[in-house]
């Protein structure tokens, strides 16, 4: 997993490359929560995510819950089809409340 970040004062854009599985869960949690603490808006580009499992989706859910709790914003954008499949399987579309655009790949 590799995170490519681009941030300004209140917004951080992250593009996640690679897998989001239990092996990356710890690292992902630390990174995302840290960024969320520093910025008002966190935008995660999911287009380069290959594999995602329950642990991965849990971290995203945790981040979403945390953002709601602290009055900040988390946006997931450009879901890759792997991500999309799990989000739909778990019926979490409403939970994340992100506009979903089916990416071409």
């Amino acid at each position, binding site marked *: 997993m590799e995170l490519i970040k681009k941030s300004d004062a209140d917004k951080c854009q992250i593009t996640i490359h690679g897998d989001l599985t*239990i092996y990356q*869960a710890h690292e992902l949690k630390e990174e995302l929560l840290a960024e969320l603490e520093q910025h008002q808006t966190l935008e995660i580009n999911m287009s380069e995510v290959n594999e995602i*499992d329950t*642990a991965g989706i*849990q971290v995203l859910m*945790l981040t979403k*819950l945390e953002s709601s709790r602290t009055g900040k914003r988390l946006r997931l954008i450009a879901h890759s089809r792997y991500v999309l499949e799990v989000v739909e399987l778990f019926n979490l579309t409403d939970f994340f409340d992100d506009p979903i655009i089916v990416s071409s790949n």
Partner: protein
Amino acid sequence: MEDMALAKISFRNECNELLQDMEASLLQLENDLDNEDAINAVFRAAHTIKGTAGIFGFDDIVEFTHVVESTLDQVRNGRLKITSNLIAVLLSSGDQMNDLIDIVTASDDESFICIDQKSQDLIAKLNVFLGKDPEILVSETKQQIEEIRVPEITDMPNADISTKDNWHISVRFDKEVLRHGMDPISFLRYLKKIGEMLSISTIHDSFPDSKTMDPECCYLGFEVTFHANPDIKKEDIEEVFEFVKDDCSLKIIPPNSHISKYIELIFDLPEEEMKLGEILVASEVITRKELNDALQAQRQEEVSGFIKPLGEILIEDGTTDKSVVKAAIKKQDVVRKKQAAEKHFIRVDATKLDNLINLVGELVIANAGSYLIAQKSNHEPLIEANLTTSRLVEEIRDNALNLRMVQIGETFNRFHRVVRDVSKDIGKDIKLSITGADTELDKTVVEKIADPLMHLVRNALDHGIEKPAERLEQRKSEFGTVSLNAYHESGSIVIEVIDDGRGLDKNKILEKAMSKGLLHNNHSLTEQEIFRLIFEPGFSTAAEVTNLSGRGVGMDVVKKNIEALRGIVDIESTLAEGSTIRIRLPLTLAIIDGFLVNVGNASYVIPLDMVVECVELTDEQIDSSQTHDYISLRGEVLPFIRLTDMFNVTHKAKIRESIVVVQYAGQKAGLVVDELLGEFQTVIKPLGDLFQQVRGISGATILGSGEVAVILDVPELVNQAVNIEAHHIHNLSIQKFNPLIVH
């Protein structure tokens, strides 16, 4: 909608039983107006039918039955007195319910018929008893229908199957599941392979705060509404979660479960009740109203510090009609019991049974053949082996024939209603008494005897029993009694229709017979013969023609029907005291135990049931019997027939003749034969048309040797012997020997 069709069938069956109960109880009530058990039974029947029909959404039945039920409720509470008028209307209502159920269950589409004119008429009649305006009652009923329809609680396949035909799966994964290398995603994916996930909610309430949350732990649970593929059972769903069965808590609610199961689930699960409830509501498993009411009730109970079972809460909170819950539960019970009972019975195509019996017949013949050969061989072990086989074949035969035996009680019980209705119609007070209801006879015979029996009962009601005034004049009880009785007697079943009415008037019958030209002189007729005249076509003694009988058709048809079953009918009657009509039928129509005899060069079979004893003729008897056709058997006159004369064969020389004493319908006669060969299992083969007119034989059979033996028609032979004798005796006026007077 296969399930719906099945459900309709079980609804139909259940209603049949209930309606029968209802009718029986109403008839019971009629005799005993204060019988509370009967009132309750009738009420229960109506109530259950209404409840069940409501669950199915058969509004017309509900609408109609509701009025019946309301009336019965009034009776039950003592606010309305039960009268025979009311019973009459209730009986018709039962018929109407039956018709409505017929119409509804027969229709394939699920549109429901309108309340028809007959229902309206009956409702109007019932309302007279209730003292209500029909309009009000109908609108009340409609309201009640709404109340019944709302809860939709039943285990039965529901009319509204699309939302209820789904499983509900509730799963909470343990924290360690991810570390154990398993991922909920794969289980859900697998689940998708055996059905369709109609809705899924991911439960994340157990997420700790973000700092303590361990990203390698699983905090998720799922609520899934699942439409399984056909043939998927609960075990199949459990199997999906097999690998995590120790690492998760899994709850599966089958389709069409009672609402309380879901409510229970809500309280069982760790999350907040309201939230889970919302999920269930969203997945259309339960309605919001049901949820709110149950939750509220639960809370109230908690406050008052005492917790009731949820089922009770559902009933008590008022949104759920108590009666409907009860009906549903009762229905489940009935269905379950029926399923249990059905396990003891197998429906078999009647033709399969016939084939079996035919085969057994062939087996019996083949066995007789091999036994014969064995005997000739003088080979002891072979004979013994054959004997064993014979015994087994005999058992198989009896068992096979037994398969067809049914009790006559059911046929008898139908007459309760007939007697009641007819006696009302013709203004007589008549009771029906039934004995011997457990007597068994062949199913085909039962079916064929129902019509003749109906005719005889109606005759007894109409002609037999006098009007009450007339009865009182005769110093008889005002109430007439018609009895049905059945019992076994020497290989036959005897069915009696007995009335304590006016009896048959011999003179009237003779008069009528003369006027109809059936008879030209009346000198030599015995009592029996006179009575039998009423079976002649075109004979009727009824002075008045009613809509029941007296049109001159009937008794001759009855006689023909009974004779077609190889039965006979006779009459016993005493003027002013009553009559007994007695039907005698053979027990089976296929295989009998026979008694084999030799006359001349041929073998004959006498049905063993009719053989009383065998007597050797003494020289003296032989001499004296040349002139007349009777002997003295232990001081009794025994008329006999020489089969050599009967069938015109030559008597074997040098063989001492024997007499086989046979009995039928209480009359004895002797058959003189050359040789007694012993018992023989006889498969009755019908004779061709060519032999139809030959008297004295009823069929043929095949012997082990392949020879054909004729089966003697004992009733006919006895009749002949007795008739010949009767004329002798009549002339001699030795009344005490007249075997015709049976009683």
